[in-house]
């Protein structure tokens, strides 16, 4: 009789209890898989930010403007590969609640500084040449059904045209893809020049600059050069690495990481108690049998391993099912028409899940396994 067979027999002697403990484990790992995928997606803006990219904003706050004249001044600084300036357009499509992340940019340098925005050669030429062009991300294009050749109206909740209208029309000349699965494709880009010439107030100001340095090692030097250039002017600048900027941006919403982490911890805590308890119980119910097995010559260490094997098996079945179903949850989310970052269950999440499954199996099994190990034959048999 193999140990595996015995473990299996022990597990299935109370099918209902087995089902319930596996189910509890399944729920916990479903929560773990889905929530962690969500968290990784939120952090992807930080993870995917390029080391050789900087962001220059107004020192007072990034919503304050900078003069457009700064762009050429910054371009002349040594160590800089490219500069693209951007304005927040405050865009929405049809309904003010359907926000579209719209940026008015310098069309010639955008794709050089942000090389994760992928367009075909033809799309790129059309983007640079048509001043009413808009390039839209794959995800937002899918949500609104936009395709190349469409002429779409976008409204601004900040700016208006000289005639008082807040609607601009654009030609969709390209649907861009992201270089990575989690690259943001919810944004759309329009020409700064077109925007600046048609809007009715606040002209010749930019929102911020995205800067690519020739080498990440030059970042510090470039940051210093930019910020010192504008010190004691009306528009002082603050230049930070893209990673730091994105991180601070995300943290404005609050400590979402802490909230999500607590949820996962709570879910694990619940199954730890439930599964642990039912393992203790099921081994205690078998005290008699374990005594018999020991009498028959089963070594204590073998019984120890069998009990642990049982709890590990429960953890692996439940955890495995939970992680599998969280792929389904992620799939549903990614295909829902909502502007959310792309969820991915990456190998890190999987590896951590495996570690947690193993940990859970060991922790819930260790107490009953040790008590089975120490069980004295006489007590075991007399207890029955």
């Amino acid at each position, binding site marked *: 009789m193999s140990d595996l067979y015995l473990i299996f027999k022990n597990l299935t002697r109370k099918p209902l209890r087995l089902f*319930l403990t596996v189910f509890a484990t399944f*729920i916990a790992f479903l929560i773990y898989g889905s929530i962690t995928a969500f968290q990784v997606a939120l952090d992807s803006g930080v993870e995917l930010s390029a080391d050789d990219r900087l962001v220059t904003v107004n*020192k007072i706050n990034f919503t304050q403007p900078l003069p457009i004249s700064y762009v050429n001044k910054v371009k002349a600084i040594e160590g800089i590969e490219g500069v693209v300036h951007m304005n927040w357009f*405050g865009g929405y499509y049809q309904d*003010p609640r359907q926000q579209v992340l719209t940026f008015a940019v310098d069309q010639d340098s955008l794709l050089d500084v942000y090389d994760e925005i992928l367009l075909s050669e033809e799309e790129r030429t059309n983007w640079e040449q048509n001043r009413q062009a808009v390039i839209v991300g794959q995800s937002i294009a899918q949500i609104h059904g936009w395709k190349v050749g469409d002429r779409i109206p976008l409204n601004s909740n900040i700016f208006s045209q000289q005639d008082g209208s807040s609607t601009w029309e654009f030609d969709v000349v390209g649907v861009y893809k992201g270089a990575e699965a989690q690259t943001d494709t919810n944004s759309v880009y329009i020409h700064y020049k077109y925007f600046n010439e048609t809007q009715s107030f606040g002209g010749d100001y930019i929102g911020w600059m995205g800067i690519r340095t020739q080498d990440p090692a030059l970042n510090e030097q470039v940051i210093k050069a930019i910020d010192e250039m504008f010190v004691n*002017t009306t528009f002082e600048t603050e230049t930070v690495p893209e990673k730091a900027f994105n991180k601070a941006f995300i943290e404005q919403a*609050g400590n979402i990481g802490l909230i999500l982490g607590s949820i996962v911890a709570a*879910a694990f805590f*619940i199954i730890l108690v439930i599964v642990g308890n039912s393992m203790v*119980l099921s081994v205690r119910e078998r005290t008699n049998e374990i005594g018999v097995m020991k009498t028959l010559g089963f070594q204590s260490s073998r019984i120890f391993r069998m009990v642990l094997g049982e709890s590990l098996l429960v953890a692996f079945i439940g955890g495995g099912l939970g992680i599998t179903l969280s792929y389904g949850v992620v799939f549903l989310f990614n295909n829902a028409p909502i502007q959310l970052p792309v969820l991915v269950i990456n190998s890190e999440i999987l590896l951590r899940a495996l570690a947690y499954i193993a940990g859970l199996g060991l922790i819930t099994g260790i107490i009953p396994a040790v008590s089975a190990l120490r069980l004295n034959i006489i007590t075991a048999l007399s207890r029955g």
Partner: protein
Amino acid sequence: MSKMLSQIWAVVVMNIRSLPQRIWMSLAAVFAISVVVAVLLSFLSMVKGFQHTLEGTGSEEVAIVTRSGSRSELNSSLSRDEVNIVSTAPGIAKDESDNPIYSPELYVVVDGIKRSSQTEVNLPMRGISLAGFALRDRVEITAGRMFIPGNNEIVVGEGVLREFDGFELGKKIKFGKTNWEVVGTFSTGGSAFESELWADARTVQTQFQRGSSFQTIRLRLSNPGDVAGIKKLIDDDPRLILDVETEADYFAEQGAALEGTIGFGWIISIVMSLGALAGALNTMYTSVSTRASEIATLRAIGFSNLSAFIGTLVESIVLSVLGGIVGALVSFAFMDGLSASTLGASFTQIVFTFDLTPELFQSGIALALIIGVVGGFFPAWQAARLPVIVAFRRGN
């Protein structure tokens, strides 16, 4: 009938009193349910606190005028002319010298440092006049003094002081080329205005290159809630592309920003409840099986199966409600009154405190009860149908 009731009562008491024999299994169920309830209530109290803060901010007696479609103060922009025309609208309350009571305001965003994360966050700096100050309910200077119009001086809301660094009383702050000084702190009774920095509107216009433009107008209404006169003036004048609503409506809309979080909290809690339900079922089935001979014996001596059913169900409900209460208390102890801040609709931080209201407490207990009833029902069913023979078969 009374015999039935006394039977049920006897079984219920017996089950409850024998709980200590099954202490660990019972505690596991209580614990699992308490965690679920604590998670749910933490989410709900967060959203409730945020909504309370914003709802408490808006007044029915004040109307707010923004550029049409802007949906937030930050995005809006109004010219001096627009302000002047709107101030003549009917329905605006007048002061003693028969001038309309209104306050054109600016809303610019500046950096602060969030204490908990030490990262830069957006704080709203409001350009306001003394008239605007008087338009807020319950507003008072709590330390220092009010800014003097024309000076680069700031008064700071108490929420800002609580959550952010950089704006302590007496502190000098440089915006561009100019220095500003924090000369006072103010309170507005816990409303969202306490998350703001206030300075003289004209000074803000000059120092932030806003020319003579403003962003919003606040007006005191002669009839609370009635903006019809102002709306008519705007509709009739083609130069005015503006929206008007009561301040109460404006902030209620902003309070809806975290509505999605309520859904998220419920979904997570319900999924977790399924896990806790598995725990409760496990506990109750075990309870029934360890008492199998006892239950069967009771049946053998004439107790009804209904009493066996209800006895088990009540045991489950007691455990779950206990768990619900523990979870709610833990959540109350750690969450209620907790100060936090998040990004509001105007792209700036709003400081709020978690608020675990009695209704939320009820939702938590209701969730616990559902788990208890479902988790007890099936084992109770089993107990009720336990054949009497078991009493004799499992003779140990």
